[in-house]
């Protein structure tokens, strides 16, 4: 009798568990072409209509932000600024704030992140895919127009020196991720993964409460990831030379340009991942750390903090900040090629 009662009780529990899992939040997905890339938006919700309307609000916001901040396009405030017809251009409050926050990182990092690097990126052909190697004299001439300290921002009004052009591309996706996360939270979504072209924004954690698992791409093989970092409610942003590059005479030239030389960054870092709460800052710092290299990037991290780092070098080292010691795991297949080192 006792046994029968016990079995009934167990069966009841099992049944309740089964019912519980059936009512669990379901995934909903949406895809957007914006900012020159494909964005995957995945949310979990128990409310189908609510999830769909939140996704379409985010899609609309992303497209609008793209039009507003792209370097080309009739509606772009940045294109209008770069056209140079006016001495000064008044930006929307939002665009001005993005520029202002990017300039703050420029100042912080000694100018390795510089919105005015755009004419150099263009000279290398990275904006049009018609790649070329500019000669030294040409680079010297263009570099005269690269100087973030000459971007005058007063209130929402920007004034550039003649010939200067800016691009907010290295922070826009990070900022967009933050805005998307805020929109989703307002709509009551507690769990989401937004992949804005490799720039990942996590909202909450997985529906089962476990942290999300974000794969860090193998810089030498686009089809696989070499490690996984577990994170919740964070931005995870990577800058890699592999995203846009060309090869000439056996050398690789990538699109991340060091403003100090006008040439592709050559710090030994081939992939820089920054993890933190502030997507715009993570985006900005992933580019900056790629250019700074291991020692200077970690020196910056020690000084400022508030984020975590995964730096992969060409000589097979992966340097991580101490807080990632437990949350970053190298895939077994890469154990022979890379060593993970906690750097302080």
């Amino acid at each position, binding site marked *: *009798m006792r046994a*029968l*009662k016990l*079995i*009934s009780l167990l*069966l*009841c529990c*099992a*049944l309740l568990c*089964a*019912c519980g*899992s*059936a009512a669990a939040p*379901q*995934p909903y*997905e949406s*895809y*957007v*072409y914006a900012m*020159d*890339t*494909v964005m*995957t938006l*995945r949310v979990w919700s128990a409310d189908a209509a609510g999830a769909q309307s939140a996704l379409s609000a985010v899609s609309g916001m992303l497209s609008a932000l793209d039009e507003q901040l792209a370097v080309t396009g009739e509606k772009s405030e940045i294109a209008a600024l770069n056209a140079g017809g006016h001495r000064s251009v008044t930006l929307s409050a939002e665009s001005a704030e993005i520029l202002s926050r990017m300039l703050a990182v420029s100042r912080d990092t000694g100018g390795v992140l510089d919105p005015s690097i755009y004419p150099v990126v263009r000279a290398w052909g990275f904006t049009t*895919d018609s790649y070329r190697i500019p000669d030294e004299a040409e680079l010297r001439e263009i570099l005269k127009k690269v100087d973030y300290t000459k971007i005058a921002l007063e209130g929402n009004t920007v004034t550039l020196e003649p010939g200067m052009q800016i691009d907010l591309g290295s922070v826009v996706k990070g900022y967009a991720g933050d805005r998307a996360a805020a929109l989703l939270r307002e709509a009551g979504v507690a769990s989401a*993964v937004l*992949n804005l072209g*490799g*720039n*990942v924004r*996590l909202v909450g954690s*997985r529906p089962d409460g476990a942290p*999300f*698992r*974000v*794969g*860090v*791409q193998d810089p030498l093989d*686009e*089809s696989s*990831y070499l490690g*996984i970092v577990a994170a919740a409610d964070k931005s*995870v*942003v*990577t800058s*890699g030379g*592999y*995203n846009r590059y060309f090869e000439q005479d056996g050398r690789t030239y990538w699109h991340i340009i060091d403003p100090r030389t006008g040439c592709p960054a050559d710090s030994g870092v081939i992939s820089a*991942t920054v993890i933190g709460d502030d997507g715009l800052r993570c985006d900005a710092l992933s580019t900056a750390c790629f250019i700074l290299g291991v020692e200077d990037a970690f020196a910056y991290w020690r000084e400022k903090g508030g984020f975590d780092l995964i730096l992969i070098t060409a000589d097979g080292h992966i340097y991580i900040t101490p807080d990632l010691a437990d949350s970053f795991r190298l895939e077994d297949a890469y154990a022979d090629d890379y060593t993970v080192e906690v750097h302080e």
Partner: protein
Amino acid sequence: MMKYLRSTRFWLGAFSVLLLLSAASIVFMHRRADGGTAVILQNNREIRRIDLSAVQEPYTLRVDNPEGGYNIVLVEKGRISVTEASCPDKICIHQGRISDSTKPIVCLPNRLMILIEAASGSAPDADALTS
């Protein structure tokens, strides 16, 4: 006593049946996730949906871009890839075969995207890829 026993047995039986049913439905849901469904989108619009677990023999299909250009898609059991394309960069071909929802195949020039739907109930190795 007999009455009580009978009623306990009754409930035991009823719950067993319900439990079996719910277990069967869970197994069924998970089986659907196995292999995955590939979705082909053009210009953000779904144009084709393929159950990759049901593919017997590999085959190719051609997707034409209304504005010119094309992609040849290879459909195999459990995976899908682009083998030929009119675009200049061939990034879609270099993205290789995909077999899970971690990363879609994208051809920006032809506004084509191929992805494998995230199956509910399945536990992917990675929820997203940072690159």
